[in-house]
């Protein structure tokens, strides 16, 4: 960071800093920011935080496209840009959230909101990348997401199932980044379909299947020797993993039709709901980190049309509520961290297209389970919901909190193949009030 800023001549740097302080980050953030911008040379001593290591599993719900904080968890009914969403009271005295949540208000004692998220970019791709990796996207390397980080620390928990899974993710997930491909999350395109092509053609007996696998190996040997590349080796690993999985009884985990009808219904008859249900099945079978993506939050136009924001919030409400209840009834809530994340917020005014545009200066995220102190709100935005007034939280801080709950050492460095050191949450700091 220091070098980057040193490239600028002074006025540029100053104008960036003063602007950042004034309107992007909120004045109260200056001390933390100062540490970065001024490039304090002293090595930070790893801070010890309480409450770590209680999240055996993580279900990470990602609202892709940028969820409007102003219509969900940070309602500003009296502001100019409030839109049409009304606030409703919750089981936590004084805490209000958006009216499209019907079941969640009763469960808010279990949920901790962070209303003071802010991020460095208002573009989707860098925003998603930063949220999932704590690092800015650069050309010379690719950073790993949290699931692979955890696997690199703790090893794989289930012999045949992967340690992390991404359900309904787009084509640009940072995945295992620079780590070996065996750390990659398994992508599931559609939870209802589960793992496709998981059974061999009926005519093929085990013996023949093995013959075929051996043939691949033999025919491919000289090529693999000539091109001993990471990418080539990765495919060889994937073949091995796939064969192990095919022979395992764990395969059934991916089949949500094995769940009772009423459970499936409770989660919601939509991709996202069924994805969350699959996530629960997976963590029950020792998959550590499952991300479920809910797409389509990029409401630049007609945000309040029935099939836009209101519908997605209703789906989120149904699914998140069902998940909390289900985890509780299965005794998994205390060991499972539920994360609700998105890349940035949306503008505190309704545009002339009846939508909201990108807004990196403030947004909301949430955490629940695994000993997170629910029923509280971290941070505060101004009257319009446009800037962070108190306790700003950057994606790295948010990820530090998740990693800490998982028991990952925040100070530990892992080296990329090119020899550069990286930390699980970059320089993020744990939100202490939550843990």
């Amino acid at each position: 960071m220091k070098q980057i800023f040193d490239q600028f001549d002074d006025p540029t740097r100053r104008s960036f800093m003063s602007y950042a302080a004034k309107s992007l980050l909120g004045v109260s953030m200056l001390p933390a920011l100062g540490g970065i911008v001024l490039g304090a040379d002293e090595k930070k001593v790893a801070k010890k935080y309480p409450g770590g290591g209680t999240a055996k599993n993580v279900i990470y719900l990602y609202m892709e496209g940028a969820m409007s904080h102003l219509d969900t968890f940070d309602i500003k009914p009296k502001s100019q840009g409030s839109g049409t969403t009304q606030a409703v009271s919750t089981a936590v005295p004084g805490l209000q959230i958006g009216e499209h949540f019907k079941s969640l208000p009763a469960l808010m004692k279990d949920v901790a909101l962070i209303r003071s998220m802010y991020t460095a970019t208002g573009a989707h791709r860098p925003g998603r990348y930063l949220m999932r990796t704590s690092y800015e996207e650069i050309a010379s390397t690719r950073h790993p997401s949290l699931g692979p980080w955890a696997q690199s620390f703790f090893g794989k928990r289930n012999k045949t199932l992967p340690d992390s899974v991404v359900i309904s993710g787009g084509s640009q997930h940072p995945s295992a980044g620079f780590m070996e491909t065996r750390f990659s999350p398994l992508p599931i395109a559609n939870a209802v379909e589960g793992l496709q092509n998981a059974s061999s053609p009926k005519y093929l007996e085990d013996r023949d299947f093995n013959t075929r696998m051996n043939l691949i190996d033999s025919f491919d040997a000289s090529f693999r020797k000539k091109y001993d590349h990471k990418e080539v080796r990765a495919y060889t690993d994937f073949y091995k993993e796939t064969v192990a999985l095919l022979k395992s009884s764990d395969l059934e985990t991916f089949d949500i039709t094995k769940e009772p009808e009423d459970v499936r219904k409770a989660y919601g008859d939509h991709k996202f709901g069924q994805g969350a249900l699959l996530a629960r099945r997976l963590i029950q079978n020792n998959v550590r980190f499952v991300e479920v993506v809910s797409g389509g939050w990029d409401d630049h136009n007609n945000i309040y049309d029935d099939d836009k924001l209101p519908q997605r919030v209703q789906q989120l409400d149904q699914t998140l509520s069902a998940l909390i209840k289900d985890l509780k009834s299965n005794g998994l809530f205390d060991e499972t961290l539920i994360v609700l994340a998105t890349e940035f917020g949306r503008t505190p005014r309704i545009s002339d297209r009846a939508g909201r545009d990108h807004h990196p200066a403030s947004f909301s995220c949430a955490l629940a389970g695994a000993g997170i102190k629910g029923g509280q709100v971290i941070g505060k935005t101004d009257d319009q919901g446009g800037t962070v007034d108190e306790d700003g939280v950057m994606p790295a801080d948010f990820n530090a909190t998740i990693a800490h709950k998982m028991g990952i050492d925040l100070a530990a460095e892992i080296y990329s193949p090119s020899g550069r050191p990286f930390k699980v949450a970059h320089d993020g700091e744990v939100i202490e009030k939550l843990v």
Partner: protein
Amino acid sequence: MNRPVSISFRAMLCGVMLFLVFGFPYVNSVEAQKKKPQKPSSKLPVDAESVKRDSPTKVESESLTQVRTSAAKIDALVAKNYKKFDVKPNPRTTDEQFLRRMYLDANGSIPNLRETKTFLNSTSSTKRERLIDFLLGREGYVAHQYNYWADLLRPIDREGRLRLIPYQTWIKQSLRDNKPYDEFVSELLTAEGKVWENPAVGYYLTDDGMPLDNMNNTIQLFLGTRIGCAQCHDHPFDKWTQKEFYQIASFTGQMVTRSTGEEGKAFGQMQKQFRSATEANSDKIKMEGAEARYGVVQNLIVANRYNVSEVSWKQLKLPKTYAYDDAKPESVVQPKTLFGEVLTVKPGEARREVFARWVTSPKNPRFAKTIANRLWKQLMGVGQIEPVDDMQDGSVAENPELMAFLESEMIRVEFDMKEFLRIIMNTKTYQRQASYKEWDPAVPYHFPGPTLRRMSAEQAWDSLLTLAIPEPAAYSKDPSREYEALINVNFSKEKPADVLKKAIEFDRKIAGGKARTDKERPYSYVPDRDTYQGQYVRMLLARAYELPSPLPPGHFLRQFGQSDRELIGAASTDGSIPQILTMLNGPSTHMMLEPGSEIYENVMRERSELDQIGVIFLSILSRQPSSAEKQLARKEIKRAGNAGYGNVIWALVNTREFLFVQ
């Protein structure tokens, strides 16, 4: 999980025909052979007329001398860096390696058996040059380049209620005509009208409602520069200020994407009429015997309102939160070019015309450079400047002299992308073997040859098709023509009842509901975005560029990393377990074990076992088997009988050698 496969595949995989001669060890193979071969291609939907396309523009034979000279110059410049950095170049490709890579890079798929034999048997000393020229003149060039541009331009079938199908067709036709790149970009940036009148408006409609992001995309795509950060504040890592961002964005600041004026009013009135004609409680409209939900009419009306134009009353203003001293928040911003030549908008000029002139000018310091660098990377695997879309003033090319030459060549050939690719394809550098050592992005790459690459999703799909069906290009449709006829409504002239009938027709054929069969809706292969259920399994055996966009996440192409079309350059070549499952168990590999498949028929045509094995290797890997491989294949055929052929085919398709481009 046990979802039905497509009708055609159900027919193929169930029933008697399932008893694969190659793959099924317990069926009487003679019996199966007697059956009339059923070619998968015959199961293509035949409900719409195939379109006869123009032939793609051919390269000019007269310019070959110049191509050779330019290629030699590139090689000389590359060799300078070999010397400087003590790099040992890779050996020249064998004919087999060259053929396969050439087909994948120019045609987008592996060669078929006949093509492979023809090339390998040829003794002509200029056969490489001739192959390059031949392939650049084929439809495969259009298909392959379309896949590349689709990853960048994200031409989806749909934006809101509007389908951008004509835009997809337009991009393909531009490539087919080999439209000079500067014209291509200029047409995108200045397009006006409705998508069926001027399909290039699809460029702006793709980012509809996000004019600032669109500008950000434009600068990234065509000028290789990222100014996005400056949208909200001065760029922290580059030099751009927020004011500069707004000044450049002001060039598109007077653009609107919906009909205005009289036409806009006519839409409004029509909408009102229908609203008042809607029956209370039932949401239905009935007129002259026709009946439809209000939403059905609404779909047609809204889709007709998309209309790109420039208006003088619209102004771009700085944001309310603008925090710098050089301008007031919410003040109007006038257009100003970002770097290089300073162009100003004169009275009577359309802003976007001036903007396009600035972007595409040979004098723009980053326009020719960006496209030259992109195409170099397309063939060599690594750009001269990396990343190709994040140049900064301090960016240094691996070989600045070479970069400058490539840029000057791009200008010399007047932005003829095909000619430019032809030059690189003719270099010794390109025709070397892929590097044995993997490329580390953190270390400069001095081009001892191209890098080893996994096939793109589209290359893998189109290659499997080449093994499965005789004419992968046979499926050629142009839904955009039908689309125009169905959607275009003149709201100030047509009677409401006629509009209603049209809306019903539009809904049935294009936009419509779920219960309809494919036959009724030949062009509505856009899957239902919310459920995708029961939709995609029609594994349409057409080349990737003919398929809907974006495809549902479970489709072969998406599994192998085709972009979801949300973000620029989102395609990926990473592996995953679902990919392997598809290769092991999915219909896309098993279709070639069927009687009637291209490879099946070609193998059966041979008499001797050795020739049959040769055909298998030539078809899949474009090379003859080694003697060890021959032995292994014979052993397997001896062990398993006819099923052994199937096992060999299946195994070869599952090798890394198949999936990677050497």
